[in-house]
C-alpha cells in the first residue's frame, strides 16, 4: 500500500518551475533514493513533502489521505509523521546539542522528559557525539552537525524519514557508521526517501531509485537496472559520469 503518493505535482520558487509534473508513490517500509545533478530539484521534492514548498497543482496523499498544504492542521499531521534531515542541517544555533535533539519531543510531542533524554543520549552516543552534548552548533564541524541533525530527526520516532545528502560532510569511516544505522532503521521497516551521491550505498540499500533532472522525474527503476541498464539516455549519461568520476 502506498504510504506517500504524489500525483502530477508542480511547484515554483517565484517564477522558477522547480518541480514539474512529479509522479511518485512510496510504499510503507520502502527505501527510495533520489539521484540527479545539482539543482535538479531533489531537495525541493523533500521540502514539498514537509510543506515547506507548497505545490501549486497536483495532489499529495499520505496514507491515502489527501493533504491540504494550506491547512495548518493537515500540515501538523504530515509533520508528525515525517521527519527531515536538511542538507544544511538547520540546527538551532542558540541551543546546545542535547537541546537541539530533545526540544521537539519534549515541548511539541509532550513526551516524558526523562524518557526523551534517555533516547537522545542513546542516539547521540550512537552517532559518536556523547562528549559533545553541551556544545553549540557553531563549535562543531560540519560532519558533527550533520550527525546531530540525524539524531534530532530520529528522536522524533517518525514513520517516514527524509534524508538530504546526509553523508556529504562525513569522512569515510563515519559514512559507514551512519549508513549502517540507516540500514538498521530500514530493516525495522521505516519508510525512507534518501537524496544521495553515494552511489554504492544507493545501489545497496534502495528498493527503487529515482533519477531527476531539471525538475522532472526522468526514470524510476530498481537499483540494478538504473546503474546497469537504464531506460533513459539522460540517466545513462548521469550515472556513467558519476561512476567514472569515482
Amino acid at each position, binding site marked *: 500500500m502506498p504510504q506517500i503518493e504524489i500525483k502530477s505535482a508542480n511547484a515554483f520558487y517565484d517564477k522558477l518551475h522547480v518541480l514539474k509534473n512529479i509522479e511518485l508513490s512510496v510504499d510503507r517500509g520502502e527505501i527510495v533514493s533520489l539521484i540527479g545533478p545539482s539543482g535538479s530539484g531533489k531537495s525541493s521534492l523533500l*521540502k514539498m513533502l514537509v510543506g515547506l514548498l507548497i505545490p501549486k497543482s497536483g495532489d499529495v496523499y499520505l496514507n491515502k489521505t489527501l493533504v491540504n498544504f494550506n491547512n495548518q492542521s493537515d500540515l501538523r499531521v504530515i*509533520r508528525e509523521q515525517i521527519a527531515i534531515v*536538511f542538507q544544511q542541517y*538547520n540546527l*538551532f544555533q*542558540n*541551543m546546545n546539542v542535547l537541546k537541539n535533539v530533545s526540544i521537539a519531543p519534549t*515541548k511539541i510531542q509532550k513526551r516524558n522528559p526523562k524518557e526523551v533524554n534517555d533516547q537522545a543520549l542513546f542516539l547521540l552516543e550512537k552517532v559518536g557525539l556523547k562528549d559533545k552534548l553541551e556544545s553549540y552548533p557553531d563549535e562543531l564541524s560540519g560532519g558533527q552537525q550533520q550527525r546531530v541533525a540525524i539524531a534530532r530527526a530520529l528522536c522524533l520516532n517518525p514513520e517516514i524519514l527524509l534524508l538530504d545528502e546526509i553523508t556529504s560532510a562525513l569522512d569515510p569511516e563515519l559514512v559507514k557508521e551512519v549508513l549502517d544505522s540507516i540500514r538498521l532503521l530500514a530493516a525495522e521497516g521505516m519508510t525512507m526517501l534518501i537524496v544521495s551521491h553515494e552511489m554504492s550505498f544507493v545501489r545497496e540499500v534502495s528498493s527503487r531509485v529515482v533519477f531527476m533532472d531539471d525538475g522532472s522525474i526522468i526514470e524510476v527503476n530498481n537499483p540494478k537496472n538504473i546503474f546497469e541498464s537504464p531506460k533513459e539516455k539522460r540517466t545513462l549519461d548521469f550515472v556513467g559520469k558519476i561512476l567514472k568520476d569515482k
Partner: protein
Amino acid sequence: MGYTLVYTQVLEFLPYLIKGAWISLQIAILAFSGGMFFGLILATIRTFGNNISNKIVICYVTFFTNTPQLVQIYFLFFALPEFGILLSPYIAVLLGMTLNAAAYLCEIQRAGFLSIRQNELDAAKTLNFSLMQQVKYVILPHIMKVLFPPLSNHYIIMTLGTSMAAIFGVEELTGRAFNINSETFRSVEIFSITALIYIVITFIATFLLAVIGRYFFKAKIRIIQ
C-alpha cells in the same frame, strides 16, 4: 596650582545630584523605550512595507541620523512656537531624543530582522513549532543576542546624551552639577562626582539589559564584554 580637593562640602549636595541622576535616567529610559517602539514600527515598515512607505522611512532615518541632535531639539524648542506649538524644556528634550532614537533603533532592529535565519525557521516548522513557539525558542533568543551589543551601546549614548537637557534648563544631573558649581566653585570635585554617577547609572543599565536578555530570552549574552 594650589588646588586642594575638598569633597566634604560637595558631598552635602549628593542627594540633590542623585535626584538629578534620577531625572536623567527617566529621560533616557522614556526616550529609549519610545524610540524602541517607534523604531520597531519603522523597521517593520522598512522590512515588509511597499516602495513608497520604504522611501518615507529612509528619508526619516537619513534626516535624523545626519543632523545634530542638539539642532533637532533646538528646532522643537525654539522653532515650533512659531507654529503655535509650545513645549516645555523637559518635553522638548524627551521628544527630540525619542525621535532621534527611533531613527537609530529602526536601523538596529532592522539588522536584527534581517539576521533571522530562514534555515532555523524551516526546521522549527517541520518540527511542528507553533508561531509563538518559533518566536520564543528560535527568533527572540537569536535577535536578543544579535541586538544586545548595539542596543545597550545606544542606550548608553542616550543616557549620556541626556546631559544636553541642561542647555534647556532641565534640572537633571548635569544641570544640577552646573548649579552647584556656580554656588561653590568646587569644579573638580563636582564634575568628578557627576562623572562617577554617570558611570554607575550606565553600568547598572547594561547589567540589567544583559540579565533580561540572558534569563528571559535565553540569549547567549556575555555580561562583561
